[in-house]
Protein backbone atom coordinates (compact mmCIF):
# COMPACT_ATOMS: atom_id res chain seq x y z
CA UNK A 1 0.00 0.00 0.00
CA UNK A 2 1.45 3.33 -1.05
CA UNK A 3 1.20 6.62 0.82
CA UNK A 4 -0.18 9.88 -0.48
CA UNK A 5 1.55 11.28 -3.51
CA UNK A 6 2.41 14.96 -3.36
CA UNK A 7 3.46 16.78 -6.48
CA UNK A 8 7.27 17.06 -6.60
CA UNK A 9 6.98 20.78 -7.07
CA UNK A 10 5.00 21.09 -3.87
CA UNK A 11 7.59 19.20 -1.83
CA UNK A 12 10.37 21.32 -3.29
CA UNK A 13 8.53 24.56 -2.75
CA UNK A 14 7.66 23.47 0.76
CA UNK A 15 11.27 22.69 1.68
CA UNK A 16 12.57 25.93 0.18
CA UNK A 17 9.93 27.90 1.99
CA UNK A 18 10.95 26.83 5.48
CA UNK A 19 10.49 29.67 7.89
CA UNK A 20 8.36 31.60 5.44
CA UNK A 21 4.65 31.53 4.81
CA UNK A 22 3.82 28.17 3.23
CA UNK A 23 3.03 28.55 -0.45
CA UNK A 24 -0.53 27.85 -1.46
CA UNK A 25 0.42 24.87 -3.59
CA UNK A 26 1.76 22.96 -0.60
CA UNK A 27 -1.61 23.35 1.06
CA UNK A 28 -3.54 21.99 -1.94
CA UNK A 29 -5.99 19.38 -0.78
CA UNK A 30 -5.48 15.90 -2.18
CA UNK A 31 -7.52 15.18 -5.28
CA UNK A 32 -9.44 12.02 -5.92
CA UNK A 33 -11.02 11.20 -9.25
CA UNK A 34 -13.99 8.83 -9.23
CA UNK A 35 -14.91 7.26 -12.57
CA UNK A 36 -18.48 6.01 -12.85
CA UNK A 37 -21.53 7.83 -11.50
CA UNK A 38 -23.67 4.93 -10.34
CA UNK A 39 -24.41 4.09 -6.72
CA UNK A 40 -20.79 3.22 -5.89
CA UNK A 41 -19.21 6.24 -7.58
CA UNK A 42 -21.73 8.88 -6.51
CA UNK A 43 -21.74 7.74 -2.89
CA UNK A 44 -17.91 7.46 -2.78
CA UNK A 45 -17.48 10.97 -4.19
CA UNK A 46 -19.94 12.47 -1.70
CA UNK A 47 -18.32 10.62 1.21
CA UNK A 48 -14.89 11.93 0.18
CA UNK A 49 -16.14 15.52 0.17
CA UNK A 50 -17.57 15.00 3.68
CA UNK A 51 -14.12 13.76 4.71
CA UNK A 52 -12.48 16.92 3.36
CA UNK A 53 -11.09 15.44 0.16
CA UNK A 54 -11.60 17.07 -3.25
CA UNK A 55 -13.52 14.69 -5.47
CA UNK A 56 -14.28 14.81 -9.18
CA UNK A 57 -16.93 12.42 -10.47
CA UNK A 58 -16.59 11.43 -14.12
CA UNK A 59 -19.65 10.14 -15.99
CA UNK A 60 -21.10 11.07 -19.39
CA UNK A 61 -24.60 10.49 -17.98
CA UNK A 62 -24.22 13.81 -16.14
CA UNK A 63 -24.29 15.69 -19.46
CA UNK A 64 -28.08 15.74 -19.50
CA UNK A 65 -30.76 16.32 -16.92
CA UNK A 66 -32.01 12.76 -17.47
CA UNK A 67 -28.88 11.56 -15.70
CA UNK A 68 -28.49 8.09 -14.24
CA UNK A 69 -31.00 5.29 -14.75
CA UNK A 70 -31.16 3.00 -11.72
CA UNK A 71 -31.11 -0.76 -12.30
CA UNK A 72 -32.65 -1.72 -8.94
CA UNK A 73 -36.46 -1.66 -9.29
CA UNK A 74 -36.23 -1.53 -13.11
CA UNK A 75 -37.78 -5.01 -13.14
CA UNK A 76 -40.85 -3.35 -11.61
CA UNK A 77 -41.11 -1.27 -14.79
CA UNK A 78 -41.34 -4.53 -16.77
CA UNK A 79 -43.98 -5.72 -14.31
CA UNK A 80 -46.08 -2.60 -14.96
CA UNK A 81 -45.61 -1.44 -11.35
CA UNK A 82 -43.38 1.63 -12.03
CA UNK A 83 -42.48 3.96 -14.88
CA UNK A 84 -39.03 4.68 -16.28
CA UNK A 85 -39.32 8.24 -14.99
CA UNK A 86 -39.20 6.78 -11.45
CA UNK A 87 -35.77 5.29 -12.30
CA UNK A 88 -34.04 8.49 -13.46
CA UNK A 89 -31.76 10.54 -11.21
CA UNK A 90 -29.87 13.68 -12.22
CA UNK A 91 -26.55 14.83 -10.79
CA UNK A 92 -27.66 18.19 -9.33
CA UNK A 93 -27.64 16.73 -5.83
CA UNK A 94 -24.11 15.40 -6.35
CA UNK A 95 -22.96 18.88 -7.44
CA UNK A 96 -24.76 20.55 -4.52
CA UNK A 97 -22.89 18.19 -2.17
CA UNK A 98 -19.63 19.75 -3.32
CA UNK A 99 -18.49 17.16 -5.84
CA UNK A 100 -17.01 18.44 -9.11
CA UNK A 101 -18.79 16.63 -11.94
CA UNK A 102 -17.09 16.00 -15.29
CA UNK A 103 -19.82 14.99 -17.73
CA UNK A 104 -17.55 13.05 -20.08
CA UNK A 105 -16.47 9.47 -20.60
CA UNK A 106 -13.07 8.44 -19.22
CA UNK A 107 -11.10 6.78 -22.01
CA UNK A 108 -7.83 5.85 -20.34
CA UNK A 109 -5.72 5.90 -17.19
CA UNK A 110 -2.00 6.64 -16.88
CA UNK A 111 -1.36 5.14 -13.46
CA UNK A 112 2.31 6.18 -13.48
CA UNK A 113 1.60 9.85 -14.15
CA UNK A 114 -1.64 9.53 -12.14
CA UNK A 115 -3.91 11.01 -14.76
CA UNK A 116 -7.28 10.05 -16.20
CA UNK A 117 -7.81 10.81 -19.89
CA UNK A 118 -11.25 12.14 -20.78
CA UNK A 119 -13.12 11.78 -24.10
CA UNK A 120 -12.37 15.40 -25.06
CA UNK A 121 -8.62 14.75 -24.78
CA UNK A 122 -8.09 16.57 -21.49
CA UNK A 123 -6.44 14.93 -18.48
CA UNK A 124 -7.55 14.91 -14.86
CA UNK A 125 -4.68 14.50 -12.39
CA UNK A 126 -5.32 12.49 -9.23
CA UNK A 127 -3.61 11.49 -6.02
CA UNK A 128 -5.81 8.40 -5.83
CA UNK A 129 -8.29 7.04 -8.35
CA UNK A 130 -11.53 5.19 -7.64
CA UNK A 131 -13.02 3.21 -10.52
CA UNK A 132 -16.70 2.34 -10.22
CA UNK A 133 -17.52 1.46 -13.83
CA UNK A 134 -20.16 -1.18 -13.21
CA UNK A 135 -20.54 -3.87 -15.84
CA UNK A 136 -20.45 -4.16 -19.61
CA UNK A 137 -22.21 -6.93 -21.46
CA UNK A 138 -19.62 -9.42 -22.73
CA UNK A 139 -20.76 -9.68 -26.33
CA UNK A 140 -17.97 -12.14 -27.14
CA UNK A 141 -19.18 -14.76 -24.65
CA UNK A 142 -22.43 -16.07 -26.16
CA UNK A 143 -22.32 -17.01 -29.88
CA UNK A 144 -24.85 -15.03 -31.91
CA UNK A 145 -25.44 -12.40 -29.24
CA UNK A 146 -23.56 -9.17 -29.95
CA UNK A 147 -24.39 -5.47 -29.60
CA UNK A 148 -26.45 -5.52 -32.82
CA UNK A 149 -28.40 -8.57 -31.59
CA UNK A 150 -29.20 -6.73 -28.36
CA UNK A 151 -31.03 -4.09 -30.42
CA UNK A 152 -33.46 -6.83 -31.49
CA UNK A 153 -33.45 -9.18 -28.48
CA UNK A 154 -32.85 -6.83 -25.53
CA UNK A 155 -30.78 -7.73 -22.48
CA UNK A 156 -32.23 -4.89 -20.40
CA UNK A 157 -29.45 -5.60 -17.89
CA UNK A 158 -28.53 -1.92 -17.88
CA UNK A 159 -31.65 0.08 -17.19
CA UNK A 160 -32.64 2.62 -19.84
CA UNK A 161 -33.56 2.24 -23.52
CA UNK A 162 -33.02 -1.52 -23.23
CA UNK A 163 -35.66 -1.74 -20.48
CA UNK A 164 -38.08 0.32 -22.56
CA UNK A 165 -37.49 -1.88 -25.61
CA UNK A 166 -38.27 -5.05 -23.68
CA UNK A 167 -41.40 -3.47 -22.15
CA UNK A 168 -42.61 -2.42 -25.63
CA UNK A 169 -42.04 -5.91 -27.02
CA UNK A 170 -44.04 -7.47 -24.19
CA UNK A 171 -46.80 -4.95 -24.83
CA UNK A 172 -46.89 -5.74 -28.57
CA UNK A 173 -46.90 -9.53 -28.10
CA UNK A 174 -50.21 -11.27 -28.81
CA UNK A 175 -51.88 -13.05 -25.90
CA UNK A 176 -50.88 -16.69 -25.98
CA UNK A 177 -47.30 -15.84 -26.93
CA UNK A 178 -44.12 -17.29 -25.47
CA UNK A 179 -41.54 -15.16 -23.67
CA UNK A 180 -38.04 -16.59 -23.26
CA UNK A 181 -35.35 -15.51 -20.82
CA UNK A 182 -31.70 -16.66 -20.99
CA UNK A 183 -29.87 -16.48 -17.65
CA UNK A 184 -26.04 -16.60 -17.50
CA UNK A 185 -23.70 -18.44 -15.12
CA UNK A 186 -22.27 -16.49 -12.17
CA UNK A 187 -20.75 -13.96 -11.72
CA UNK A 188 -23.05 -11.27 -13.07
CA UNK A 189 -24.71 -8.08 -11.79
CA UNK A 190 -27.50 -8.73 -9.26
CA UNK A 191 -27.56 -12.52 -8.65
CA UNK A 192 -31.33 -12.71 -7.84
CA UNK A 193 -32.24 -10.14 -10.53
CA UNK A 194 -33.14 -12.60 -13.31
CA UNK A 195 -35.58 -14.41 -10.99
CA UNK A 196 -37.17 -11.17 -9.80
CA UNK A 197 -37.56 -10.24 -13.47
CA UNK A 198 -39.08 -13.62 -14.30
CA UNK A 199 -41.53 -13.18 -11.42
CA UNK A 200 -42.61 -9.71 -12.49
CA UNK A 201 -42.89 -10.58 -16.20
CA UNK A 202 -45.06 -13.52 -15.11
CA UNK A 203 -47.13 -11.12 -13.00
CA UNK A 204 -47.54 -8.83 -16.02
CA UNK A 205 -48.47 -11.70 -18.33
CA UNK A 206 -50.97 -13.07 -15.83
CA UNK A 207 -52.55 -9.61 -15.56
CA UNK A 208 -52.53 -8.54 -19.24
CA UNK A 209 -51.99 -11.63 -21.45
CA UNK A 210 -53.10 -14.58 -19.33
CA UNK A 211 -52.80 -17.22 -22.07
CA UNK A 212 -49.07 -16.43 -22.48
CA UNK A 213 -46.12 -18.27 -21.00
CA UNK A 214 -42.60 -17.44 -19.79
CA UNK A 215 -39.80 -20.00 -20.04
CA UNK A 216 -36.58 -19.24 -18.14
CA UNK A 217 -33.54 -21.03 -19.58
CA UNK A 218 -30.79 -21.03 -16.95
CA UNK A 219 -27.09 -21.89 -17.21
CA UNK A 220 -27.12 -23.11 -13.61
CA UNK A 221 -29.04 -25.41 -11.29
CA UNK A 222 -28.82 -23.33 -8.11
CA UNK A 223 -29.54 -19.64 -7.67
CA UNK A 224 -29.98 -16.93 -5.06
CA UNK A 225 -33.09 -17.23 -2.82
CA UNK A 226 -34.13 -20.26 -4.88
CA UNK A 227 -36.47 -21.80 -2.29
CA UNK A 228 -38.22 -18.46 -1.79
CA UNK A 229 -38.65 -17.87 -5.51
CA UNK A 230 -39.89 -21.39 -6.10
CA UNK A 231 -42.37 -21.05 -3.23
CA UNK A 232 -43.69 -17.81 -4.76
CA UNK A 233 -43.83 -19.20 -8.30
CA UNK A 234 -45.79 -22.25 -7.18
CA UNK A 235 -48.30 -20.06 -5.37
CA UNK A 236 -48.57 -17.21 -7.88
CA UNK A 237 -47.56 -18.28 -11.36
CA UNK A 238 -48.30 -21.99 -11.99
CA UNK A 239 -48.81 -22.55 -15.70
CA UNK A 240 -47.30 -19.15 -16.53
CA UNK A 241 -43.65 -19.42 -15.43
CA UNK A 242 -41.48 -22.43 -16.20
CA UNK A 243 -37.83 -22.52 -15.03
CA UNK A 244 -35.40 -24.90 -16.74
CA UNK A 245 -32.10 -25.44 -14.94
CA UNK A 246 -28.78 -26.41 -16.49
CA UNK A 247 -29.08 -30.13 -15.85
CA UNK A 248 -32.45 -30.23 -17.63
CA UNK A 249 -30.97 -28.51 -20.68
CA UNK A 250 -31.43 -24.89 -19.67
CA UNK A 251 -28.01 -23.57 -20.66
CA UNK A 252 -28.25 -21.38 -23.77
CA UNK A 253 -25.28 -22.04 -26.04
CA UNK A 254 -26.21 -19.89 -29.03
CA UNK A 255 -28.65 -17.18 -30.02
CA UNK A 256 -30.31 -17.27 -33.47
CA UNK A 257 -31.51 -13.70 -33.77
CA UNK A 258 -33.09 -14.00 -37.23
CA UNK A 259 -34.96 -17.15 -36.19
CA UNK A 260 -35.92 -15.62 -32.79
CA UNK A 261 -34.57 -18.82 -31.28
CA UNK A 262 -32.44 -19.77 -28.29
CA UNK A 263 -30.29 -22.85 -28.82
CA UNK A 264 -29.62 -25.01 -25.75
CA UNK A 265 -27.55 -28.15 -25.33
CA UNK A 266 -30.49 -30.41 -26.22
CA UNK A 267 -33.10 -28.23 -27.92
CA UNK A 268 -34.15 -25.09 -29.79
CA UNK A 269 -36.72 -22.71 -28.27
CA UNK A 270 -38.58 -20.16 -30.37
CA UNK A 271 -39.89 -17.09 -28.56
CA UNK A 272 -42.20 -14.21 -29.44
CA UNK A 273 -40.23 -12.03 -27.01
CA UNK A 274 -36.70 -12.99 -26.00
CA UNK A 275 -34.72 -11.45 -23.16
CA UNK A 276 -31.07 -12.55 -23.25
CA UNK A 277 -29.03 -11.72 -20.15
CA UNK A 278 -25.51 -12.37 -21.42
CA UNK A 279 -22.32 -12.94 -19.42
CA UNK A 280 -20.74 -9.68 -18.24
CA UNK A 281 -17.42 -8.14 -17.27
CA UNK A 282 -16.15 -5.00 -15.58
CA UNK A 283 -16.91 -1.75 -17.41
CA UNK A 284 -14.45 -0.99 -20.24
CA UNK A 285 -12.32 1.56 -18.35
CA UNK A 286 -11.22 -1.25 -15.99
CA UNK A 287 -9.46 -3.12 -18.79
CA UNK A 288 -8.07 0.16 -20.20
CA UNK A 289 -6.62 0.98 -16.77
CA UNK A 290 -5.11 -2.49 -16.40
CA UNK A 291 -7.07 -3.34 -13.24
CA UNK A 292 -9.13 -6.20 -14.76
CA UNK A 293 -7.64 -9.71 -14.79
CA UNK A 294 -8.26 -12.49 -17.34
CA UNK A 295 -11.69 -13.15 -15.82
CA UNK A 296 -12.75 -9.66 -16.92
CA UNK A 297 -13.27 -8.58 -13.29
CA UNK A 298 -11.00 -6.60 -10.93
CA UNK A 299 -9.06 -8.18 -8.06
CA UNK A 300 -8.78 -5.84 -5.05
CA UNK A 301 -7.52 -6.06 -1.47
CA UNK A 302 -10.42 -6.38 0.99
CA UNK A 303 -9.75 -3.39 3.31
CA UNK A 304 -9.75 -0.31 1.05
CA UNK A 305 -10.39 -2.08 -2.27
CA UNK A 306 -7.11 -0.97 -3.86
CA UNK A 307 -6.34 -2.86 -7.06
CA UNK A 308 -4.03 -5.84 -6.71
CA UNK A 309 -2.72 -5.01 -10.19
CA UNK A 310 -2.27 -1.21 -10.24
CA UNK A 311 -1.26 0.75 -7.10
CA UNK A 312 -3.17 3.94 -6.35
CA UNK A 313 -6.29 2.73 -8.14
CA UNK A 314 -9.27 1.47 -6.13
CA UNK A 315 -12.15 -0.49 -7.67
CA UNK A 316 -15.59 -0.74 -6.06
CA UNK A 317 -19.05 -1.98 -6.98
CA UNK A 318 -20.03 -4.58 -9.55
CA UNK A 319 -16.68 -4.40 -11.41
CA UNK A 320 -14.63 -5.65 -8.46
CA UNK A 321 -14.05 -9.18 -7.15
CA UNK A 322 -15.44 -8.87 -3.63
CA UNK A 323 -15.41 -12.49 -2.49
CA UNK A 324 -18.62 -13.41 -0.68
CA UNK A 325 -20.20 -9.99 -1.22
CA UNK A 326 -22.55 -10.02 -4.23
CA UNK A 327 -22.73 -7.54 -7.09
CA UNK A 328 -25.58 -5.40 -5.76
CA UNK A 329 -26.30 -1.69 -5.37
CA UNK A 330 -26.51 -2.11 -1.58
CA UNK A 331 -23.07 -3.74 -1.56
CA UNK A 332 -21.66 -1.11 -3.91
CA UNK A 333 -22.87 1.68 -1.63
CA UNK A 334 -21.31 0.09 1.44
CA UNK A 335 -18.04 -0.51 -0.42
CA UNK A 336 -18.11 3.16 -1.50
CA UNK A 337 -18.32 4.41 2.10
CA UNK A 338 -15.55 2.07 3.23
CA UNK A 339 -13.35 2.96 0.24
CA UNK A 340 -13.80 6.71 0.77
CA UNK A 341 -12.64 6.38 4.40
CA UNK A 342 -9.69 4.22 3.37
CA UNK A 343 -8.65 6.65 0.64
CA UNK A 344 -8.93 9.62 3.00
CA UNK A 345 -6.81 7.79 5.59
CA UNK A 346 -4.16 6.85 3.02
CA UNK A 347 -4.00 10.41 1.68
CA UNK A 348 -3.45 11.66 5.22
CA UNK A 349 -0.54 9.24 5.62
CA UNK A 350 -2.45 6.81 7.81
CA UNK A 351 -3.71 3.26 7.39
CA UNK A 352 -7.31 2.25 6.66
CA UNK A 353 -9.33 0.66 9.44
CA UNK A 354 -10.38 -2.96 8.93
CA UNK A 355 -13.98 -2.75 7.73
CA UNK A 356 -17.12 -4.74 8.27
CA UNK A 357 -19.66 -4.55 5.47
CA UNK A 358 -23.28 -5.53 5.05
CA UNK A 359 -25.61 -6.28 2.18
CA UNK A 360 -29.29 -6.92 1.66
CA UNK A 361 -30.79 -7.85 -1.71
CA UNK A 362 -34.56 -7.59 -1.85
CA UNK A 363 -36.56 -9.06 -4.70
CA UNK A 364 -40.14 -8.09 -5.41
CA UNK A 365 -41.95 -11.10 -6.86
CA UNK A 366 -45.44 -9.55 -6.97
CA UNK A 367 -47.12 -6.42 -5.58
CA UNK A 368 -46.81 -6.54 -1.76
CA UNK A 369 -44.64 -9.66 -1.91
CA UNK A 370 -40.94 -9.12 -1.13
CA UNK A 371 -38.15 -11.54 -0.19
CA UNK A 372 -34.56 -10.88 0.81
CA UNK A 373 -31.10 -12.29 1.35
CA UNK A 374 -28.66 -10.55 3.70
CA UNK A 375 -25.03 -10.91 4.69
CA UNK A 376 -22.36 -9.33 6.89
CA UNK A 377 -18.75 -9.50 5.70
CA UNK A 378 -15.16 -8.89 6.78
CA UNK A 379 -11.75 -9.35 5.19
CA UNK A 380 -10.95 -13.05 5.43
CA UNK A 381 -7.73 -15.07 5.55
CA UNK A 382 -7.91 -15.69 1.79
CA UNK A 383 -7.59 -11.97 1.08
CA UNK A 384 -11.23 -11.71 0.03
CA UNK A 385 -14.32 -10.47 1.83
CA UNK A 386 -15.82 -13.43 3.66
CA UNK A 387 -19.21 -14.13 5.29
CA UNK A 388 -19.49 -13.73 9.05
CA UNK A 389 -20.74 -17.07 10.31
CA UNK A 390 -24.16 -17.01 11.91
CA UNK A 391 -25.18 -13.71 10.31
CA UNK A 392 -27.23 -13.12 7.20
CA UNK A 393 -29.35 -15.59 5.27
CA UNK A 394 -32.66 -15.57 3.47
CA UNK A 395 -36.19 -14.64 4.57
CA UNK A 396 -38.04 -17.55 6.18
CA UNK A 397 -39.62 -20.06 3.79
CA UNK A 398 -43.34 -20.44 4.48
CA UNK A 399 -43.62 -17.08 6.24
CA UNK A 400 -46.95 -15.34 6.81
CA UNK A 401 -48.13 -12.90 4.11
CA UNK A 402 -47.49 -10.00 6.51
CA UNK A 403 -43.75 -10.76 6.34
CA UNK A 404 -43.81 -10.61 2.53
CA UNK A 405 -45.78 -7.34 2.67
CA UNK A 406 -43.24 -5.89 5.12
CA UNK A 407 -40.31 -6.91 2.94
CA UNK A 408 -41.87 -5.32 -0.15
CA UNK A 409 -42.21 -2.10 1.88
CA UNK A 410 -38.61 -2.42 3.11
CA UNK A 411 -37.44 -2.78 -0.48
CA UNK A 412 -39.21 0.44 -1.45
CA UNK A 413 -37.77 2.26 1.59
CA UNK A 414 -34.30 1.02 0.74
CA UNK A 415 -34.62 2.27 -2.85
CA UNK A 416 -35.69 5.72 -1.62
CA UNK A 417 -32.79 5.75 0.85
CA UNK A 418 -30.02 4.66 -1.47
CA UNK A 419 -31.11 6.95 -4.30
CA UNK A 420 -31.18 9.84 -1.82
CA UNK A 421 -27.70 8.90 -0.55
CA UNK A 422 -26.37 8.83 -4.11
CA UNK A 423 -28.32 11.52 -5.94
CA UNK A 424 -30.54 13.40 -3.44
Amino acid at each position, binding site marked *: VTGPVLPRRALLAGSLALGLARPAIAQARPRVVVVGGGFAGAIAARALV*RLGVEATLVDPAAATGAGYVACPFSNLVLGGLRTMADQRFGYDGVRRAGVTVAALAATGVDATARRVRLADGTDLPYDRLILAPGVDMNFAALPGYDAAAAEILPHAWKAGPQTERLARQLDAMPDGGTVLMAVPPVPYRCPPGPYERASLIAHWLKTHKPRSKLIVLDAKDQFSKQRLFEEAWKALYPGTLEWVGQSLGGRVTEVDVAGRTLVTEFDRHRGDVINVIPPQRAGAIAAAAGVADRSGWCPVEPVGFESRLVPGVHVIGDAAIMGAMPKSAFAAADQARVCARAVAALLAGGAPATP*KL*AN*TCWSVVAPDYGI*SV*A*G*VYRPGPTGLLTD*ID*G*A*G*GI*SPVGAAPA*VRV*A*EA*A*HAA*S*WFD*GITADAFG
Partner: protein
Amino acid sequence: MPPLAGRPADEIVTAMRAFRDGSRPAVLMDRIARGYGEAETAAIAAWIAGGGR
Protein backbone atom coordinates in the same frame (compact mmCIF):
# COMPACT_ATOMS: atom_id res chain seq x y z
CA MET B 1 -38.93 2.17 7.70
CA PRO B 2 -38.62 4.85 10.39
CA PRO B 3 -35.43 6.95 10.19
CA LEU B 4 -32.80 6.07 12.79
CA ALA B 5 -30.59 9.17 12.67
CA GLY B 6 -30.52 10.90 16.04
CA ARG B 7 -32.05 8.04 18.03
CA PRO B 8 -30.41 7.65 21.47
CA ALA B 9 -27.41 5.29 21.51
CA ASP B 10 -28.71 3.14 24.38
CA GLU B 11 -31.96 2.53 22.53
CA ILE B 12 -30.01 1.28 19.49
CA VAL B 13 -27.74 -0.94 21.61
CA THR B 14 -30.74 -2.49 23.39
CA ALA B 15 -32.59 -3.09 20.13
CA MET B 16 -29.55 -4.65 18.45
CA ARG B 17 -28.98 -6.94 21.43
CA ALA B 18 -32.61 -8.07 21.30
CA PHE B 19 -32.42 -8.66 17.53
CA ARG B 20 -29.21 -10.63 18.04
CA ASP B 21 -30.58 -12.94 20.75
CA GLY B 22 -33.93 -13.32 18.99
CA SER B 23 -36.04 -11.79 21.77
CA ARG B 24 -37.31 -9.02 19.48
CA PRO B 25 -39.31 -10.20 16.47
CA ALA B 26 -37.75 -9.10 13.20
CA VAL B 27 -38.07 -9.40 9.46
CA LEU B 28 -34.45 -8.60 8.60
CA MET B 29 -32.60 -7.05 11.54
CA ASP B 30 -32.06 -10.37 13.34
CA ARG B 31 -30.02 -11.56 10.35
CA ILE B 32 -27.96 -8.36 10.25
CA ALA B 33 -27.49 -7.89 14.01
CA ARG B 34 -25.88 -11.33 14.40
CA GLY B 35 -22.94 -10.02 12.39
CA TYR B 36 -21.90 -7.49 15.05
CA GLY B 37 -20.49 -7.79 18.58
CA GLU B 38 -21.13 -5.49 21.56
CA ALA B 39 -18.23 -3.10 20.83
CA GLU B 40 -19.23 -2.75 17.18
CA THR B 41 -22.85 -2.23 18.16
CA ALA B 42 -21.82 0.55 20.55
CA ALA B 43 -19.85 2.24 17.77
CA ILE B 44 -22.79 1.96 15.38
CA ALA B 45 -25.15 3.34 18.03
CA ALA B 46 -22.89 6.32 18.73
CA TRP B 47 -22.69 7.08 15.03
CA ILE B 48 -26.47 6.91 14.61
CA ALA B 49 -27.04 9.05 17.73
CA GLY B 50 -24.69 11.64 16.25
CA GLY B 51 -26.81 11.97 13.12
CA GLY B 52 -25.45 9.11 11.05
CA ARG B 53 -23.29 11.03 8.60
